[in-house]
């Protein structure tokens, strides 16, 4: 039987059955994230293989702009910070209002990210850069919106968790769910760093 304790668990008495269950749940979620990471890795590989497939259409230099991308990165990084604050609030039992405030801020930052990204895509479409234009654009729109869809799922999850915190409070199941959501959110931040570096910075400096 495993004796290791997952850092950050605050589910009552250490080593009790619910603590063990939570450890199991969190471990399972990590494993799921690894499989998701593989999906992203393959999308990155596909993107790399299809950089040459511009078929006479617009390429990275024509389309990517650094300023909105930097702002989007800042938004996501900030949202990871605010979720960290939410986790601390959960750990020290600050009470629902504090927890909900940090969760709400994270949600807001996530929505801003999505809004900006949607705007970026609209701009690209206006320039004739839509996925059906070329293989390169298909690969771009396969990878980046995949991350965006994950963020959208995360935002819905934050909303659902907020409702649970309000209606049910922070019992063991809610806490475990919040910890998993945290893992998911930070994971998406890491994926965005890769997207930013490989796709946007890489594309602009080729």
């Amino acid at each position, binding site marked *: *039987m495993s004796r290791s304790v997952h850092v950050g668990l605050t589910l009552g008495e250490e080593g009790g059955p619910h603590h063990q269950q939570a450890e199991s749940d969190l471990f*399972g979620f990590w494993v799921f994230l690894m*499989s998701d990471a593989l999906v992203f890795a393959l999308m990155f590989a596909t993107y790399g293989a299809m950089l040459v*497939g*511009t078929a006479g259409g617009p390429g990275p230099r024509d389309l990517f702009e650094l300023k909105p991308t930097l702002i989007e990165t800042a938004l996501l990084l900030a949202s990871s910070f605010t979720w960290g604050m939410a986790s601390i609030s959960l750990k020290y039992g600050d009470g629902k209002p504090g927890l909900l405030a940090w969760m709400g801020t994270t949600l807001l930052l996530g929505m801003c990210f999505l809004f900006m990204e949607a705007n970026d895509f609209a701009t690209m479409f206006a320039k004739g850069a839509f996925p*059906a234009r070329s*293989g390169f654009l298909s690969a771009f729109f*396969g990878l980046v919106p995949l991350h965006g869809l994950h963020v959208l799922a995360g935002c819905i999850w934050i909303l659902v968790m907020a409702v649970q915190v309000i209606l049910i409070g922070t019992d063991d199941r809610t806490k475990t769910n919040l910890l998993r959501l945290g893992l998911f959110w930070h994971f998406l931040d890491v994926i965005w760093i890769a997207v930013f570096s490989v796709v946007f910075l890489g594309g602009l400096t080729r």
Partner: protein
Amino acid sequence: MSGAVLPAVLGRFEWIDLPFVRAWENPTISEIIGAGAGALVVVGALAVAGLLTITGRWRWLWTEWLTSLDHKKIGIMYVVLAFVMLSRALIEAVLMRMQQAIAIGHPGFLTNDHFAQLFSTHGSIMIFFMAMPFLTGLMNYVVPLQIGARDVAFPWANSIGLALTAAGAGLMMASLVIGQFSTGGWSGYPPYTGLAFSPDVGPDYWIWAVSIGSLGSTIAGINIACTIYKLRCPGMTFMRLPMFCWTSLCTSILMIFAMPPLTVATALLALDRYLGFHFFTNDLGGNVMNFANLFWLFGHPEVYIVILPAFGVYSEVVSTFSTKLLYGYTSLVIATMTIAVLSFTVWVHHFFTMGQSANINAAFGIATMAIGVPTGVKIYDWIWTMFRGEVRFTVPMLYSLAFMTTFVIGGVTGIVLAIPPLDYVFHNTLFLVAHFHNMLIPGTLYGMLAAYNYWFPKAFGFRLDERWGRRAFTCWVVGFYLAFMPLYVLGASGMARRTAEIFEPDFRPWLYVACGGAFILLAALGSLSVQLWVSVRDRDETRVTAGDPWDGRTLEWSTAAPPPEYNFAVLPTVTRRDEFYEGKRDGNPYSPPVRYDRIEVPRGSILGPAIGLAAMSCGFGLVWHMWWLAGLGLTGAAAAIIARSFVRRTDRIISPGEIEAIERRWLTAVHEHRPISRELERTRANHGVAEAMPT
């Protein structure tokens, strides 16, 4: 009759999409067979519904099975699904063999298109809806019992995995009744399966059935891996795990890392087909070679996913029925892990002929051959397990022996194929088909059938009929040799796979033998059905309630047959490998505990069936462009998950009094029956209590 019928509601459905309409308008044998198959699905579904209604069993089915989160029930349902799909895919194989025997300088009785759908459904079903569910069901049933746990790590996810697999299988069955299936084979290479060349619903059925099924497999993999990592009972260190658990662990890890490439491949193809993307199109910068790479990054580990659990079964069976310790436990562990790791390094050998440089081909060829070493180690370890043992020729052992001899033939033909210049000759010929069936049938199928005969008494409390078991075994072995050995010769003669018509009369004798073999394999399936029927009929004579019919070594044999819902009244503590076996020899493993505590078990949940229905609706809607249905399905699945997260009371308590009553009943059965020697294990004297063999 063509033209869309109510496109807003029914998408791109037209009357001509019904096989009954097609057969009416064009009554050829090919169309009538298609209509017959569709009719069988409808009649079969109605028959099952009718039976449930007449016997008043709907509530029972719902509460005892479909909503159950018990790993044992879920495991059994997976295996039942596998057997149903095995029947369909085997009949499809017989039809193909018949076509090839008849269509020599003659059009045969199946159109090219029908034949192409048959080989596509046959492959897709056998891999995704027969082998995967069978081994997943097996791992689900056995692993928690073997590690001394009460259930898997995530029972709710277990139910979802089953539901998704069933949803994928449902889509396969739907393609028989409405529309048609893909003609691109189980590997579905674009651009043939792209919009430009196959705009019909076929490839879409393939995409969604396989994608939904693969999601189920990923979930199952995560579940089993976490179960083995986190839920082992006290004292069960990794090196005390039964060999079946080691192979299950490696299989699960493979599932977690190999299913995502498939999901990506089919998802990108879907984006091409639905939204006009250019991942795999010929024009505008598409890259068809990328599909081959993505698919086989999944495809090669997949074949190890289907074989490793069988290897685990053979380890258990050979050791038990040689009445001896498994030889070379540590070597077997190292060999299993080596195979798992190496399986990710060889995928290019599935397309040596795609134009890579000699260096790349050679490197992957050498990696492929390297896997032969740990596999050979396993075979020899099983041989040396029998050495100086006392070998009992029960049905599971017979399958193991047939496996050891037949599988090596497939293994060496694999080494032949691993050599690129030889692969250039044999790729996509019947030699390749013979090779992989030579691995899958003696390897995976015999392993699953051995497991079925071995663990059936544990799951249901009575043994399977030996006589019909042997008849089935004989048919499987003879049928396999006759059906597939000729294919090696035909492949060496240059005959292509997936071909509905043959123009070379010299191929005739071999195709006739192969067809004969196929009929014998059909008889094998029939024998299995008879075996089950006879076993159920005679179950009072073969009851093994005490739970240990084979003098088993591992923990699952230390429970009643069938085990109670909670598996163990008190979680066992383990101090060595084969704790139960050693315990029978130096102690009393059947002594009741000092006291009974309450046990929490998962409550049943509607989550699984809801997600299964939602997934199948979503898939079906996407196939037919019924966007409202697809949206409804997707929303339904999301809603089910969100709703589940609000449920607080997910477990129910079994009281100590209840447990004590169950355990007492079982221990009474143990003590009232005489322990029997191994010579009597196939007789009526076997009530599930074993006597130690004198050394």
